[in-house]
């Protein structure tokens, strides 16, 4: 047995393992059917600018959009918020916190297989209006609720 065939075998084994890893990678990677991460919108510092970067200028208040959250959050680091839209053809639900350093907290693109009802937990630096922004039928609608924070969620 010479050195060469051994090293060749090892090389082939390694190549095989790499190939397998690559295959797993493609299987695990989510198929992104919708938009890429909207960096500009997440980093913008004013509400009008955030709306603009989301294409949501001219969003109007709607009674068919609901934001469900308690009036007072004891811990700003963990504020449960739920958004419900009764509008037909709802395709997107976002949560925005007016007085956070960056307003946009989370954006959900939902397909026709979803009930437009999403719950998550967000951080709030201080008492602020929380806006639920809904895209339905290509237009944007909002619901706003003030949540009082007794203990801030940022910087602590």
């Amino acid at each position: 047995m010479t050195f060469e065939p051994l090293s060749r075998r090892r090389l082939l084994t390694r190549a095989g393992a790499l190939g397998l890893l690559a295959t797993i990678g493609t299987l695990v990677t989510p198929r992104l059917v919708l938009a890429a991460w909207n960096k500009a919108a997440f980093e913008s510092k004013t509400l009008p600018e955030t709306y603009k970067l989301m294409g949501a200028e001219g969003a109007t208040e709607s009674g068919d959009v609901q934001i469900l959250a308690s009036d007072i959050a004891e811990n700003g680091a963990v504020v449960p918020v739920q958004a419900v839209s009764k509008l037909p053809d709802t395709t997107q639900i976002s949560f925005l916190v007016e007085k956070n350093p960056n307003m946009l907290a989370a954006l959900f693109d939902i397909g026709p297989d979803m009930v437009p009802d999403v719950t998550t937990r967000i951080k709030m630096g201080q008492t602020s209006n929380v806006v639920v922004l809904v895209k339905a039928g290509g237009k944007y609608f909002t619901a706003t609720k003030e949540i009082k924070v007794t203990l801030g969620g940022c910087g602590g």
Partner: protein
Amino acid sequence: MGNPMKIRAASKDGITEVKVLMSHEMETGFRKDASGAPIPAWFISEVTAKLGDKVVMEAQWGPSVSKNPFLAFKIKGGKAGDKVTITWVDSKGDTRTDTATVT
């Protein structure tokens, strides 16, 4: 690769309610460590939910989603035995996928 997610998916009256608890620091980038040096931002930025092989929801998150994020949503359809798969990708490019069976 982070710690496993806890996923519960329950079907009732034709609607599958999914609850997910993820394990992640969700560092904002605004905080400083004990020596005053800024702690860099590190957060889950994208979340994908699938029922079976079909993507039903795609989320984009910023760092102001709470640490160890919780997420609940409702899918039209789905029945006991179906698979719900959640994948997240964070701002460092780390990713994790977990699957739960609908009950």
